[in-house]
């Protein structure tokens, strides 16, 4: 018979592929193709499920924010973790980003004889784009990974189930304070990044390459308008929701993503995907917001 398919009449006018030939069918080229297509379908369904779960999780979190009492001490704790503890890394990345913008900008602008515009170039790049985006990515890497890992460990060691048995809503307990802490921390960290970055541009531009500091600062003030600043803040607010939601939901649903492994491996997979997905989504949302704001 080889690889030929066999159709047999089962009852009356119904025809079916014979069950005993099923393996043979799967070995045929068509069968292999079907397998591939099926795998693609499974993956797609997994993505859709993840997005759906994440969205529902997000709205549950928002809903829990409306439930009194306000969880002040937990918000404080997470603000400390997301905001205060990220300051050092933000200062470092901010100053070097500003410095490199100063260098690159200077050598580009000097060709057109308009190195006096360096202040505008640095300030606009930072306030519109790099400030919110790099801050969000750094915080996702630092605090987001920790969120995903912590919640993931709580999931696999049944601590989340334990919360449920105590009639404590885990979404409220774990996610809601982190949303608030993120919404507080991200814009402040972004502002810090912008200011430090502008200072970094001043370091290279004025101290190293000799642009008049007065002109540099005048250009900074002159070229940036209020819409740029508010746009940057809007971005950082959206990114805060993206990062907290992605990282918390990845950790929270660790047990449902078994492709990356179980137990400790599952947590490590959750942590990695949380950071990667956050970063990708930050850039996607950055494009969308920029498009809408312009």
């Amino acid at each position, binding site marked *: 018979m080889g690889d030929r398919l066999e159709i047999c009449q089962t009852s009356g006018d119904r025809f079916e592929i014979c069950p005993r030939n099923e393996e043979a069918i799967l070995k045929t080229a068509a069968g292999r193709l079907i397998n591939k297509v099926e795998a693609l379908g499974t993956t797609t369904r997994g993505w859709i499920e993840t997005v759906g779960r994440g969205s529902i999780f997000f709205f549950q979190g928002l809903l829990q924010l409306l439930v009194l009492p306000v969880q002040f001490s937990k918000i404080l704790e997470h603000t*400390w973790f997301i*905001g205060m503890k990220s300051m050092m890394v933000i200062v470092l990345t901010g100053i070097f980003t500003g410095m490199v913008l100063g260098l690159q900008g200077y050598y580009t602008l000097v060709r057109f004889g308009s190195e006096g515009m360096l202040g505008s170039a640095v300030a606009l790049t930072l306030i519109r784009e790099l400030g919110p985006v790099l801050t969000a990515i750094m915080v996702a890497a630092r605090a987001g990974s920790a969120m995903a890992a912590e919640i993931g460990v709580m999931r696999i060691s049944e601590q989340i189930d334990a919360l449920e048995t105590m009639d404590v809503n885990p979404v409220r307990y774990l996610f809601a304070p982190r949303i608030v802490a993120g919404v507080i921390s991200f*814009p*402040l960290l972004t502002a*810090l990044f912008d200011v430090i970055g502008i200072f970094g541009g001043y370091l290279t531009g004025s101290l190293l390459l000799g642009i008049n500091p007065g002109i540099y600062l005048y250009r900074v003030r*002159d070229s940036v308008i209020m819409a740029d*600043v508010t746009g940057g803040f809007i971005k950082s607010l959206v990114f805060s929701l993206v990062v907290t939601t992605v990282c918390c939901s990845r950790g929270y649903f660790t047990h449902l993503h078994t492709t990356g492994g179980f137990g400790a491996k599952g947590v490590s997979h959750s942590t990695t995907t949380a950071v990667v997905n956050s970063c990708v989504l930050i850039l996607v949302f950055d494009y969308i917001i920029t498009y809408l704001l312009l």
Partner: protein
Amino acid sequence: MKKTNIELYVGLFMIIGLLCSAYLVVQVGGLKLTRKDHYSVYAYFSSVSGLKPGANVEMAGVAIGNVSRISLDKEQLLAKLELSIDNHYMFSEDVIASVKTSGIIGDKYIDLAPGGSEFDLEPGATIFNTESSLDIESLVSKYIFSDKE
């Protein structure tokens, strides 16, 4: 003990963050905290090509305000500018407003040249004497074509 530490650090973080935000918003973004120190006047131009909201309004090279809004007047089909002028400065009603460029490829701004009338320009009034922006492209093409002929 540990709790107060967290509160202290979060407080510190908030202060630093808010100071940075305030610097960005007030100094860099140029938010007017008090609305009262500016007044608005209006001016119509046949073209304000290249002019952006927020551009400077200068007199004798000194910045005295900025362009707060640019819109198209639907009846006259002219560009309508709202100029926000510092309260310290008053002009005569026949002041001349023109769109100028700083350098050849620099930013556009509005230049005010003093007039001679004895009446002051009231807040909310309209400047009648205006000169539209110099169109470099048409100047250049004019020069080229005249050369050919």
